């Protein structure tokens, strides 16, 4: 890639949707980076339609984009390779978020353009939430599982983590697994059906994200069961934190979405502006998880009162060590 010493004026950020708190925070994080270097942040939304992002990337590259900085969300793992290869062909550099096929990595594919892949550990999320659930139900009883869209890596990882927890908590059994497609209403309808089907047998619900967990809580409320049947989610969105505080939810894996956006943007900018050379990066710096914390009743107050400080997300602050909050390299064979 062209290591233009001239600083990029724009950072291009691709997001799944602007209609969710997580993505809004990602945008916010990236915006702080852009602000701090005086660059413009352009946000591209796809509604999780990979084709749309392909066309948008194509349009940007077509208009001429040597040495551009991209922080990109591949809508599904199927598109990752195409995105990074295009960035390479267009002479740009790119960081990716979340979705990467298990068998390709930034150092073996489009390695001059693909700076890094930044994600969160879904197995860990599933495991910790699962163990919290195990504890909450006293190590015994049936739980039900709400999965996200079935072909999505975080959904699979969180399921693997849960299964690990189940194997360590032999009294906890999985009554049923259904696909809720990350949606609130679907989560609500499925949970209603579970309540009717399992009645008292249903001791807990493991929802793979906060949206479905919200639907689950709504269904439990209808039956006066909210707070009695523990529910776990993942993302740590503000409304779920409030539910954890009120006791209607048990836990949720809080990921730092601002950090996700900021690190992805900062790394892309760093390479595009020549502050960092791809060739100097180790594998652990190119494929890593960011830290995450399980939100429970014990720490939720602190989380709720914490206000992100823009200064922490400035380019200069991050540049001190882009990997300061990395949880380490993503294990091989996993994504």
């Amino acid at each position, binding site marked *: 890639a062209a290591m233009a010493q001239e600083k990029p004026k724009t950072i291009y950020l691709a997001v799944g*949707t*602007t*209609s*969710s*708190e997580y993505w*809004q*925070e990602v945008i*916010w994080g990236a915006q702080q980076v852009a602000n701090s270097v005086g660059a413009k942040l352009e946000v591209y*939304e796809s509604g999780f339609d990979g084709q749309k992002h392909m066309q948008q990337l194509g349009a940007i590259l077509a208009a001429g984009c040597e040495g551009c900085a991209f922080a990109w969300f591949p809508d599904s793992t199927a598109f990752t390779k195409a995105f990074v290869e295009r960035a390479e062909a267009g002479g740009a550099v790119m960081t990716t978020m979340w979705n990467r096929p298990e068998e390709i990595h930034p150092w073996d594919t489009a390695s001059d353009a693909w700076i890094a892949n930044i994600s969160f550990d879904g197995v860990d999320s599933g495991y910790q939430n699962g163990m919290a659930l195990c504890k909450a139900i006293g190590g015994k009883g049936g739980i039900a599982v709400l*999965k996200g869209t*079935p072909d999505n890596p975080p959904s699979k990882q969180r399921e693997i983590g849960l299964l690990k927890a189940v194997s360590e908590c032999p009294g906890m059994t999985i009554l*049923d*697994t*259904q*696909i809720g*497609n990350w*949606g*609130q*209403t*679907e989560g*609500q*309808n*499925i949970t*209603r*059906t*579970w*309540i*009717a*089907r399992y*009645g008292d047998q249903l001791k807990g619900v493991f929802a793979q994200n906060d*949206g479905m967990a*919200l*639907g689950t809580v*709504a269904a439990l*409320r*209808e039956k006066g069961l909210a707070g009695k049947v523990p529910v776990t989610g993942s993302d740590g*969105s*503000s*409304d779920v934190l*409030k539910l954890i505080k009120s006791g209607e939810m048990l836990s949720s894996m809080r990921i730092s979405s601002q950090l996700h956006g900021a690190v992805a943007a900062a790394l892309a900018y760093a390479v595009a502006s020549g502050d960092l050379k791809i060739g100097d990066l180790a594998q652990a710096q190119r494929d890593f998880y960011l830290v995450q914390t399980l939100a429970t009743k014990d720490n939720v107050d602190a989380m709720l009162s914490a206000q992100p400080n823009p200064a922490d997300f400035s380019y200069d602050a991050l540049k001190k060590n882009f990997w300061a909050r990395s949880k380490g390299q993503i294990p091989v064979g996993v994504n």
Partner: protein
Amino acid sequence: MTQAQLHAHDTGAMVSPRRGEAGTQRRSGHTALGVLKSAGPIVSLVAMVLVFASLTPNFVSAANLQAILESAAVPAVVTIGMTFVLVQGSIDLSGEGVASLANILLSILIANSVTAHDLGAGAIVVALAAGLAVGALNGTLYAYLRMPSLIVTLAMWLITLGLAALLFPSRQPQILDGGFVGLALHKHLGLSALVYLAAALALVAFIVERRTKLGRMGFAIGAEEALVRLAGVNVNVYKVGAFAICGCLTGLAGILTAAQIGVGNPLAGEGLLFPGIAACVIGGTLLSGGRGGVLHSLVGVLVLVTLRNGLVQTGANPLLQKAIEGVVIVVAVAASTWHLRRKTRVVK
């Protein structure tokens, strides 16, 4: 012999009784065959209940019936509105966007955790008005500019969804208005106010459909628009009316979703549209217009909701549920319109 004389002659010839004389016959719905034919969708519903009941004993429990009715409430509201449009032979695809827009409007205007507004019932009025306005705009573009409703509402789908996203205040607003959230929470006879609201709306819609000019002209337009125009009826007004009703009810559905979950969601309408249309058609409302109605569509909603519930109850492979649903839609529609098959029938 002149032709006039000839006519006088075969005067006698023509008095022989004709076949199929309606004479004293009343409505087809009152004949045994008529009842059976329009009962097709109900028969499929009953058959489905029987199948699931035999597969899992829990299926017919009171708790599960409540679950089914609660899950049917919001789709029913959407479907009632959609029926008015389909009966006229047009289609409204904008539902997902409209419901999302109404949902987000409501949740940022009612007492909530993100914005400072607290309009109370005023928020509901604004959100409903937005639905109504989009519906009326759909109808106006379709009726007065003569653009196909499919494409008008498809574009409006994108526009309203975009507006909902633009209005989204970067965090999901939690709704703090206890009375509003209570709509979904307080139960009477085991059912929330939403179910009663849906039932009441169905009743009102049924009366509108059968007893008002708007309802009756809707059927007429669906069957013979050209003739209705020929009679000098201002068809466009009724078209706009139907789309406005549809938009308003779809907006209401978005509002009710907010009551159910307790948080605003700019994607609240997702997954409402195609099942809504499928429900109408399964119930016996023809996409070509002129036939069917609110009660038909309600049966269709129950068929779909029962199916989804039953698939979960019986533990069908979750990956295959969509596929099973697809097949059931086709089979249910084919079965409920089987008696209409004719060589010369046109179905597009």
